[in-house]
């Protein structure tokens, strides 16, 4: 169990502090030599920062083969998160997701997953050649968002695909929605499948009180945790957690397939120090975050038109639980797409929020926030309603399109392809991604059938101002299809 005595330590930070005081003469990389080689860079990022940007060496351990301070820090993280093992990741949570999937799936293995996964999940399938079996996450019609997976739907997928190797669960989704991960885990384990959790938005589940259950507590096998989101570490730093039934040495080999051999000590120490803070103050921190989010939610709901949703969505199944630290707001009631409100907030009110999609916006609330800034957000939303409110008719209100997987993502991605205009692609098989970013949930993924409905949706999203990404054509006017049809 985590104890204050042990969690009070930060081995990587301590080792870096010792290292700086020892004034070692650097005849190794990085070439900026503690910032002395580039004055502008040092001025811009700060002397302290550059002096800590060092290479792996004996007193600082090695991320690819940790035996001392990194190992200690990872063990402390495992303890703090209630995991058997923890790996510090420096290539983003994307790399944690990839390592997680590649640790349990090989070419042609099936993996059961909801469609509203992050692009990194399907990217991993391209890399390893696994085949997705999508579970339709139910749609909340009013909000236009995909929910969690129902236990029944997962069970059906498992029964239909008894040879599948794993089930992947979003815990929670970008919008804060949780599936019944505990029951899904029990079910999957009964059928000999591993359970992987994408916890990019769930770091706080491990430390806050009255939070949805964390993947490790639910008995899942692997979890990718975005420490740099609610955990407060530096951008791109992340943690991969392992349960008891996973071989950590094999996972490390998988991680090392794609991980840099020059792991940044800025990122590593930020993971170490953030883990310490989470373990010591996390409960208080997230209590405050939850209160702030609730305050903002109540104020926004009192404006009228907007709907800032929370635990009232819980239905015991597709919304098994809701992460109340998330401030997700549906904007369709004022006749505006979320992305339109997102753009106005930034362009007119100097307020940057996390994302806007067709029907919703998400404002990310963390310990770095103040009531003063929440008042600004709420007031700006009130103003946007007063000034821009439109008739709600004609608003596209659905977001989920059931994909038809024709070819495995890897096969489609590497196949001979042909670039055609979007409108000419109906009935063809797509060989690349199309998604709005953020949130980065694919509308189309390699290997899927392109339908009229999908093309309409892409055009509507573009018209509303969503940033469409994934295709070779940066304007997303053209799309790559499988050459010669199917």
């Amino acid at each position, binding site marked *: 169990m985590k104890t204050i005595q042990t969690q009070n330590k930060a081995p990587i930070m301590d080792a870096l502090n010792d290292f700086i005081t020892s004034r070692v003469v650097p005849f190794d990389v990085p070439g900026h030599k503690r910032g002395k080689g580039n004055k502008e860079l040092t001025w811009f990022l700060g002397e302290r920062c550059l002096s800590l940007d060092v290479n792996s060496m004996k007193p600082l351990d090695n991320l690819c083969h940790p035996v001392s301070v990194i190992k200690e820090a990872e063990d402390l993280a495992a303890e703090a998160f209630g995991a058997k093992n923890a790996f510090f990741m420096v290539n983003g949570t994307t790399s944690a997701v990839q390592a997680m999937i590649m640790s349990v799936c090989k070419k042609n293995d099936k993996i059961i997953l909801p469609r509203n996964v992050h692009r990194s999940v399907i990217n991993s399938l391209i890399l390893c050649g696994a085949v997705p079996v999508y579970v339709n996450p139910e749609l909340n019609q009013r909000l236009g968002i995909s929910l969690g997976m129902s236990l029944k739907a997962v069970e059906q997928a498992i029964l239909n695909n008894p040879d599948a190797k794993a089930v992947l669960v979003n815990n929670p989704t970008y919008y804060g929605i949780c599936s019944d991960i505990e029951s899904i885990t029990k079910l999957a384990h009964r059928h000999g499948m591993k359970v992987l959790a994408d916890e990019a938005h769930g770091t706080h589940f491990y430390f806050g009180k009255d939070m949805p259950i964390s993947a490790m507590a639910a008995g899942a096998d692997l979890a990718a945790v975005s420490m740099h989101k609610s955990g407060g570490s530096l951008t791109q730093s992340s943690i991969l957690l392992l349960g008891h039934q996973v071989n950590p040495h094999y996972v490390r080999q998988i991680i090392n397939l794609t991980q840099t051999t020059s792991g940044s000590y800025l990122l590593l120490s930020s993971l170490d120090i953030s883990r310490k803070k989470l373990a010591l103050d996390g409960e208080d921190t997230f209590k405050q975050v939850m209160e702030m989010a609730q305050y903002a939610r109540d104020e926004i709901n009192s404006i009228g038109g907007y709907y800032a949703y929370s635990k009232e969505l819980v239905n015991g199944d597709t919304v098994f639980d809701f992460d109340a630290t998330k401030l997700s707001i549906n904007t369709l009631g004022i006749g505006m797409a979320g992305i339109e409100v997102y753009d106005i907030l930034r362009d007119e009110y100097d307020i940057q929020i996390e994302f806007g999609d067709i029907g919703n916006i998400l404002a990310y609330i963390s310990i770095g926030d103040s009531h003063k800034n929440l008042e600004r957000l709420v*007031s700006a939303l009130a103003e946007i309603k007063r000034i821009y409110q439109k008739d709600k008719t004609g608003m596209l209100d659905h977001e989920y399109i059931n994909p038809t997987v024709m070819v495995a993502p890897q096969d489609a991605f590497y196949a001979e392809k042909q670039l055609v205009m979007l409108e000419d692609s109906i009935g063809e098989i797509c060989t690349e991604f199309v998604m709005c970013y953020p949130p980065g949930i694919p509308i189309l993924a390699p290997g899927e059938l392109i339908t009229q409905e999908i093309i309409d949706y892409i055009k509507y999203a573009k018209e509303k101002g969503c940033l469409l990404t994934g295709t070779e054509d940066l304007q997303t006017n053209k799309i790559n299809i499988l050459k010669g049809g199917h």
Partner: protein
Amino acid sequence: MDLWYSEYHTKDVKFSIKVNKQLYSHKSEFQAIDVFESKEFGKFLTLDGYMMLTEKDEFIYHEMIVHTPMAVHPNAKNILVIGAGDGGVARELSKYKSIETIDIVEIDEEVVRVCKEFLPKTACGFEDERVKLYFQDGLKFIRKHENAYDLIIVDSTDPFGPGEGLFSKEFYGNCFKALKEDGIMVNQHESPFYKDDATAMLRAHKRIVESFPISRVYQAHIPTYPSGHWLFGFASKKYQPIAQLNEEHWNELKIHTQYYNTTLHIGSFALPNYVWEMLKNVE
């Protein structure tokens, strides 16, 4: 021994007042509050180290921010004041018998308590029975009001502390909404002189212009504020500040002032060329 209060007006410009003694120093929930006593300026209040008012020159600020709109609006009965924890604005407003309500929204209760204790010359404004004090965030208060006020006076701190939200577009928009159809908003508009102050001033001005059909700027000389050259914003739904100045009516009220008069009212809207140009560029 010399004891001096110093404020950096820019990174390279320092303004100092010799201090006899420090009367109060405490960090409230929102800001550091200090009161000093000096020979030249009498007692003075600083927030987060920035000069708010001195007994010697506060009359200039308070008279200009109150009488200018009051001499234009023909019938201002319901007034909202945001900030103004020192009571100076309330003191000037209380000179008008026609006013019915004065709502003052100050985020920091401690400022009011401290001013009542140490700065009775301005805090006496709180004694008027039409004054109602609300201790809350101005942005939150204003959000909940619609078509309620004839005049809103924004007596904020600088845009880099707790007052930041009072320089935002959402705040000005909400003020517009809270005003009646012929309402006026005046605000502390920062200074055009030093670069950082001017940038903040222009940002505020641009946002006010976007929110109100009539938006003008007037000025006063306030010795203890950075550069001494200070601006006020006059934003209005209907009344022009000079064309609709009720000179005769105001003078009949026989309100005693030390700085403001109706001739100066007109002159205060005549701005130096460099200020004009700056403002034009963002309008």
